[in-house]
């Protein structure tokens, strides 16, 4: 067992511990040079390049290992369903700060962290990599490695664990993840403002430079949706000041479940851009009004325009575009990388996975 054994409140059973078996599988695949396809709940298979390879199913490696509410940390095996994590946390009045989008009930913690996707709370509460405190992984040789830990402040060694968040399993098979968690605030209010994006943007520019309890700002084409969360008095005061329509939380739930507006499109683009950038170039390509999450810094776009057009439009507003869903076989999903950065990706890949067996080509053809 690990060296971190400070009287853990052990919930997970030995039955859910497949670490040794998984390690042997990876070592064997490395020896044969046989690519592996790491499988969690399978809810995000179509969010990156679909790949071939021997399936390595981590779902059996599951269970919450430790959660002491006063430590604000949860440690669980990667195959643990996200729903189970959220249930355990909610029972203690806590949640994951980065609000992982829900792609399906089968979603696993490992898949959530490997995909590195954060929901509407991202600009206000940080990304997945900001919540990750440590990990146990298998490298491409099948060696078990532990980086980071279970404490907030830890600057020993490189933050290899943060590198795993959003690497889609190309650098390591996640075995255990420790996440910082956040208390659920006392008050929550949803407001809606029927106003155009330029108007809403002006409102956000004024609001977000003040210390306001806002944890969500989405424009859906028809209007601005604001979510206020925090202590009672602060939330009430801001709600009074802003006016707006008291809204049901349905839209937020639908956005989180990815069934709102353009999020349902068969060919879906995600553009990450500076909040302030002028997104006319992107707007011009839209078939229906784009959905602007992250206070305008994350734009979801349904369009029949070519990949070149979308990527060029994203670049024009200092952003980058990901073909989030609906890529044709072989079509690039992620934004192209500048040559020196791509070269670094290849060298990092070799450092963790010299035989190139962990989800090869899941992100980039060359990695």
């Amino acid at each position, binding site marked *: 067992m690990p*060296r971190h054994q400070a009287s853990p409140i052990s919930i997970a059973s030995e039955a859910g511990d497949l670490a040794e078996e998984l390690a042997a599988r990876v070592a064997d695949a490395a020896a044969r040079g046989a690519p592996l396809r790491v499988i969690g709940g399978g809810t995000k298979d179509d969010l990156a390049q679909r790949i071939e390879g021997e399936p390595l199913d981590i779902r059996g490696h599951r269970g919450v290992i430790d959660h002491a509410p006063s430590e604000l940390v949860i440690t669980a095996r990667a195959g643990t369903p996200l729903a189970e994590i959220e249930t355990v946390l909610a029972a203690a009045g806590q949640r994951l700060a980065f609000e992982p989008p829900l792609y399906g009930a089968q979603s696993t913690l490992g898949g959530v962290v490997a995909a590195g996707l954060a929901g509407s709370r991202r600009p206000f509460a940080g990304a997945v990599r900001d919540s990750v405190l440590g990990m146990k992984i298998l490298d491409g040789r099948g060696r078990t*490695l532990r980086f980071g830990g279970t404490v907030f402040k830890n600057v020993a060694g*490189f933050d290899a664990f943060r590198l795993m968040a959003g690497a889609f399993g190309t650098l390591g098979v996640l075995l255990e993840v420790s996440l910082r968690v956040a208390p659920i605030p006392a008050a929550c209010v949803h407001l809606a403002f029927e106003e155009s994006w330029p108007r809403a943007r002006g409102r956000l520019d004024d609001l977000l430079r003040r210390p306001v309890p806002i944890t969500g700002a989405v424009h859906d084409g028809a209007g601005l949706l604001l979510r206020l969360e*925090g*202590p009672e008095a602060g939330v009430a005061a801001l709600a009074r000041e802003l006016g707006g329509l008291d809204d049901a939380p349905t839209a937020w739930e639908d956005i989180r479940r990815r069934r709102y507006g353009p999020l349902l499109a068969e060919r879906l683009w995600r553009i990450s851009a500076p909040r302030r950038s002028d997104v006319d170039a992107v707007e011009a390509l839209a078939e229906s009004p784009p959905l602007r999450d992250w206070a305008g810094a994350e734009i979801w776009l349904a369009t029949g325009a070519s990949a070149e057009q979308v990527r060029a439009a994203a670049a024009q507003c200092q952003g980058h575009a990901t073909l989030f869903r609906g890529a044709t076989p072989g079509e690039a999903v992620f934004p192209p990388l500048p040559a020196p950065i791509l070269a670094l990706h290849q060298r990092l890949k070799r450092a963790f996975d010299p035989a190139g067996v962990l989800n090869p080509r899941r992100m980039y053809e060359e990695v």
Partner: protein
Amino acid sequence: MLDRFDPRLDPLPPAPDRGKLIRRLSRVLPRKALIVKAEGMRVFETDGLAAYRGMPAVVTLPGDTEEVRAVLEVCRDLGAAVVARGAGTGLSGGALPVPGCVLLGLSRMSRILDIDPVACLARVQPGVRNLAVSEAARPFGLFYAPDPSSQLACSLGGNVAENAGGVHCLKYGLTVNNVQGLEVVTMDGEILRLGGETLDAPGFDLLALLTGSEGLLGIVTEITVRLTPLPEATQVLLAAFPETRQAGQAVADIIGAGIIPAGLEMMDKLALTAAEAHTRAGYPLDAAAILLCELDGAPADIACDLERVRGICESAGASLARIARDESERQLFWAGRKGAFPAMGRIAPDYYCIDGVIPRRALPEVLDAIERLSREFGLAVANVFHAGDGNLHPLILYDAQAPGELERAEALGGAILELCVAKGGSITGEHGVGREKINQMCAQFAPAELETFAALKRAFDPQGLLNPGKAIPTLQRCVDHGAMHVHAATPSFAHLDRF
């Protein structure tokens, strides 16, 4: 002493011909950016860990990204080691020159390039002082949240290299959580732009990897940081406890109640007694431990939560739980805490500050164990604790003039760090490994993990020129150090010959 590098244990490149190095550098740098005389280089001999000293071959002070690139090119051609330095306030010897190195000081790159009050971003050069960013942002109602104790002097470049923290980390995060973009020059002469104005960047999170990499992967030449709106109000509560254990319980209960303080600091009896004598902050001298709990936010919310904190402290057994009656008393409560380190000067000629991290729940047993170690080594230890995030700063009191005491202090510090690791914590929360804790890395990480770190470094710096002998120990050093990590009951390094 660890400022003696050992070619057998440390991966140092052979020192290049100094005359050739100076000739090549003088071709690419203006005269004022190159220091070659011993008296001029003296100030670069050491950083905030003043016990460690070493002379570089030359000191370079490039003024822009191109000059940084040119220096690195010369070093690459001649195989010279490069040690980057910000303001030199680091406490782990990260900027300690290694023999024959080119010291690369970034102090001349000290311009704030842009403050964007709408996007809440600042773009700065690496030599900009931490506090200068907050000062420039204040007219817009914004500040830069990470506030290491050296914030008056320390540089943003150094903060990025060390992933610096401060007393407000629990609520506002470390440097890594507040940096959104970097420009980095790599050893192969590439200028990389990682992140920037967008909330994420394509591909692997190189921005996170570079942050806290202690000058081993690249040289940061520009930084984009997030600015945070200044809170409406700030208030602090002072609580005193007859037993240390009760203070630890109060910390757990405050956080368990869903309250995230802006700062939560604890001091033990020795620390608070010295601080009180030094500052007259009004700390009760009969207490075994005190807590300072600072909350910020809307005034009505703070008032409500402070009452809850007071109730929690009293239930945990506090003999006193008092909210500062005004801003000047709030400042006074903090002045005591901030003066805790200098206050040690009253009770011992020297002190050695340790930077361990533990899960909060392990606090009582760790404090007991530190007390036992303190008796065993015959040196007093005062404890100052960023209780909110588990970052413990034991201050080991010693007398450098007394033969053997410094060595004993170093050994006691090492033992405390290894204790932190055994309790599930870390050997460093905010000071970095640098040179100081290079041996304790062997306790925190297994050989395969250290090998992976070395492989990561090679991906950026195949010749091993950037800050060699720091942060990541060689396996040979771990064998030599002896206090080895034991993984699953198998002795580490079994495959290596012992000397």
